């Protein structure tokens, strides 16, 4: 069967279950395409030969009752994988081989999936363009020299380029939704507490969530139901009734109330984003949903709040990289000198910048002015959403204020890079689920995404709205395989 890699996850599962394709054939197809796609730099580490061996073993005794039977997939290199190097895109973890498995990836292997390799990302997931990775830029398969978004840039590039049928990323301020939007794929950031953080390299623990990235909403729903689980090993994991999201998926969203927040009409937003949003509003109306104007008055304060809370938590989380227990160590004249040189040489510029910000806002004399203040504003931002959800079932916004930008375009101006996450950051601060779906193209032919934000633990409703809109939008990604010689 030709064009295996063009098939969606649902098609691949059906073909494996119907015995029209073996896991070995599918795995080999993705391995071959991944090998021909080195120029994208989507992988940090591959495990291709082991993947083919695992596929052969699966085919010898196939268990077709599993949710991901013999499906190969690559994952973001922020998830600890037992005996497979896990770098978080950093020099400081370049030699780190976990002796344990993250809960989210374990859930995936338990359902029969096979690891293809580890995907590139911004260093410690700090970035919006994948340019902070120690392992170099990732190319967006849409066009050469275009960033794939970040921090899950290797993940978005790999799904859009069909190097893996699905993947998982992590999202602290938009790191799943923004790259999904930049590459024309679907990305879901689940409610905080849905997916276990155990075994995920920590960035900002009160914001980090793992989530699925896929070619379409149904695949995304299926992967979400696999990874979402209560886990004793994560003290912030929440025990709530989880759905079989893909089985219960419906395009019937008649009578649902969709909020349009006026504060998301930001200054300088390109007209094509404004037009896309209007089109999105028409689509949900076509589906029989009702549009309601709402206000989220503290939206403009979300980014400044995020750039206190996230670096503060990061500076504390990253204190563990001291050159003693694991990871890179630089030689020093004494213990302190060793610490300082290890961290100075081991972390990249953006990570150092954020550790410095975080250290400063937590330091004596500044804690109340910055960190406490940010926590209070975070409460106001959450209150905005609570108030809005008294009137609506979900909220529709653009995913990003622009389409993908060129590699190098924003690297010298951290604030302009941060502004990219303006529509995604409030969702993390409030702990809500959000999904980005591809919804159109700009004049250059680059994909643009729309974001739907849901109530906490209401992923089903969120996925249903996305599913109904996807049908109306009928988006086709423009991938030319330019990188394959």
């Amino acid at each position: 069967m030709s064009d295996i890699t063009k098939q969606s996850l649902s098609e691949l599962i059906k073909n494996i279950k119907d015995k029209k394709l073996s896991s070995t054939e599918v795995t080999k197809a993705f391995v071959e395409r991944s090998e021909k796609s080195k120029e994208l730099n989507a992988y940090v580490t591959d495990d291709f030969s082991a993947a083919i061996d695992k596929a052969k073993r699966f085919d010898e005794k196939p268990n077709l009752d599993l949710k991901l039977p013999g499906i190969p997939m690559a994952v973001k290199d922020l998830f600890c994988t037992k005996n497979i190097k896990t770098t978080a895109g950093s020099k400081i973890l370049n030699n780190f081989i976990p002796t344990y498995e993250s809960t989210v990836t374990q859930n995936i292997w338990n359902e029969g999936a096979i690891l293809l390799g580890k995907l590139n990302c911004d260093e410690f997931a700090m970035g919006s363009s994948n340019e902070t990775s120690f392992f170099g830029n990732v190319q967006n398969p849409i066009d050469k020299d275009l960033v794939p978004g970040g921090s899950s840039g290797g993940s978005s590039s790999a799904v859009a380029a069909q190097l893996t049928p699905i993947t998982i990323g992590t999202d602290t301020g938009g790191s799943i939704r923004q790259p999904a939007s930049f590459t024309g794929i679907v990305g879901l950031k689940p409610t905080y507490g849905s997916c276990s953080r155990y075994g995920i390299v920590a960035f900002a623990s009160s914001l980090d969530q793992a989530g699925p990235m896929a070619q379409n909403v149904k695949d995304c729903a299926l992967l979400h139901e696999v990874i979402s689980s209560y886990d004793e090993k994560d003290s912030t994991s929440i025990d709530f009734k989880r759905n079989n999201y893909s089985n219960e998926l419906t395009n019937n969203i008649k009578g649902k109330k969709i909020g349009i927040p006026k504060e998301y009409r930001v200054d300088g937003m390109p007209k094509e984003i404004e037009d896309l949003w209007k089109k999105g509003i028409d689509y949900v109306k076509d589906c029989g949903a009702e549009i309601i104007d709402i206000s989220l008055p503290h939206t403009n304060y979300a980014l400044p709040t995020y750039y206190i809370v996230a670096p503060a938590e990061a500076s504390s989380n990253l204190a563990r990289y001291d050159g003693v227990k694991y990871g890179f160590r630089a030689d020093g004249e004494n213990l302190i000198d060793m610490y300082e040189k290890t961290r100075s040489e081991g972390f990249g510029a953006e990570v150092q910048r954020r550790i410095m910000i975080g250290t400063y806002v937590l330091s004596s004399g500044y804690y109340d002015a910055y960190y406490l203040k940010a926590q209070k504003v975070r409460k106001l931002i959450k209150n905005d959403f609570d108030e809005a959800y008294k009137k609506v079932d979900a909220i529709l916004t653009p995913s990003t204020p622009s389409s993908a930008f060129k590699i190098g375009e924003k690297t010298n101006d951290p604030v302009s890079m941060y502004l990219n996450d303006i529509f995604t950051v409030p969702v993390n601060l409030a702990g809500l689920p959000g999904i980005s779906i591809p919804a159109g193209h700009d004049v250059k032919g680059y994909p643009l995404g729309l974001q739907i934000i849901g109530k906490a633990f209401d992923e089903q409703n969120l996925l249903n709205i996305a599913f109904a809109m996807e049908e109306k939008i009928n988006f086709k990604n423009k991938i030319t395989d330019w990188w394959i010689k």
Partner: protein
Amino acid sequence: MSIDLKTIKHISKLSRISVNEKKAEKLAGDLNSIFEFIEKLNELKTENVEPLTSVAETTLKLRSDKVNSKNLREQIIKNSPQENEDYFVVPKVIE
């Protein structure tokens, strides 16, 4: 507010990241533009707002205090930069 080189040196010491003069100047510039952006929060009055420490409005679950991992010494030591089968090794601390 402006973050000067002295403050940068102080934060660098607190965060155990060594910085030379050139890097300190670059960091001061970056941090000043970031803090200028962060200052926006001062527009808001927050005296009567409770700080949000966790979005998950649940109390932490308790679990029984029992050991459920076997001897992990070998696994824990395995990734340490300087090899020694029993301990983590660091530069000499006592003269």
